[in-house]
């Protein structure tokens, strides 16, 4: 099993259930990122443990989650609403995961990327990737951990 995989599944299920009253189910394999359709939200953890937690979803699911969270009519979610919804979700999931990591560590504010360009975290490696289904659509939570090799050493090795 991947690092904190079970806990990530539990917390993601909990957040979706409490915040949205939505059920989620684990899916095998990896989330297929679309160049035009994927929205990413992340929080970073800094301190005794350094890395990032990223939530990746298709835009249709972002609309569904946002409308549910803010009780909006279909098609009425603004960009600001979506920012707030995804930001809140990743903040809650990230906050729960941070509690499992070595202390002391701080949680950053959420960071979002729209238009399908995925967030990248140089100097990290993916240690966990969890794939889910919600309301008939896939999404994923990925955990990135800082690699040990400092930038200057990577510079010399190129």
């Amino acid at each position: 099993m991947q690092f904190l995989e079970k806990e990530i599944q539990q917390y993601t299920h909990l957040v979706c259930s409490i915040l949205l009253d939505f059920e989620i189910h684990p899916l095998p394999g990896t989330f297929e990122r679309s160049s035009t359709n994927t929205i990413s939200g992340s929080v970073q953890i800094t301190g005794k443990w350094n890395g990032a937690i990223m939530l990746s979803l298709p835009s249709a699911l972002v609309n569904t989650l946002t409308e549910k969270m803010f009780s909006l009519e279909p098609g009425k979610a603004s960009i600001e609403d979506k920012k707030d919804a995804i930001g809140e979700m990743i903040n809650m999931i990230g906050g729960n995961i941070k509690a499992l990591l070595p202390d002391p560590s701080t949680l950053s504010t959420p960071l979002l990327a729209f238009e399908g360009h995925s967030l990248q975290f140089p100097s990290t490696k993916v240690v966990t990737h969890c794939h889910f289904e919600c309301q008939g659509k896939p999404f994923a939570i990925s955990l990135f951990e800082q690699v040990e090799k400092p930038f200057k050493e990577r510079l010399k090795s190129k």
Partner: protein
Amino acid sequence: MQQFETEICQYTENIWKSILNLDVKKTVEEYCPLEGEDVLAGCVHISGEWQGVVALDCPQELAKKAASIMFQLSEDEVVSDLVQDALGELTNMTGGNLKSLLPEPCFLSLPAVTMTQHGLRIPGSELLTSVSFQCWGYKFRVSVLKKLEES
């Protein structure tokens, strides 16, 4: 003058000169990416006694040139991972320098980088300062955003 504007100019000029041997100058013309233009956006979070983000937005072409200089490769040899590494490092250094001006203790996150046409979005924060620069015929921008106080 905007908060930290003088320091942003000083640090940015120093970093680009010392790391890349490139002269950059603040420009009064704001960096406004064209519709559909791909912008490479890097950011680091600062958390602790002060909370916010330092962001560096630049055209993909300029980021590619920076990566080719940084890793001593031709532009054809520079792959996207290296471009992201280069922008991440420039953002990291800029953020690290600015962090020293902020109330202690503060902690700097790892850099995050993305290709975007609309910029990274940071809910719950407000733009404090934005400074545009000119380099090698391109413009780029360094911004500082502060987390809004929770009501």
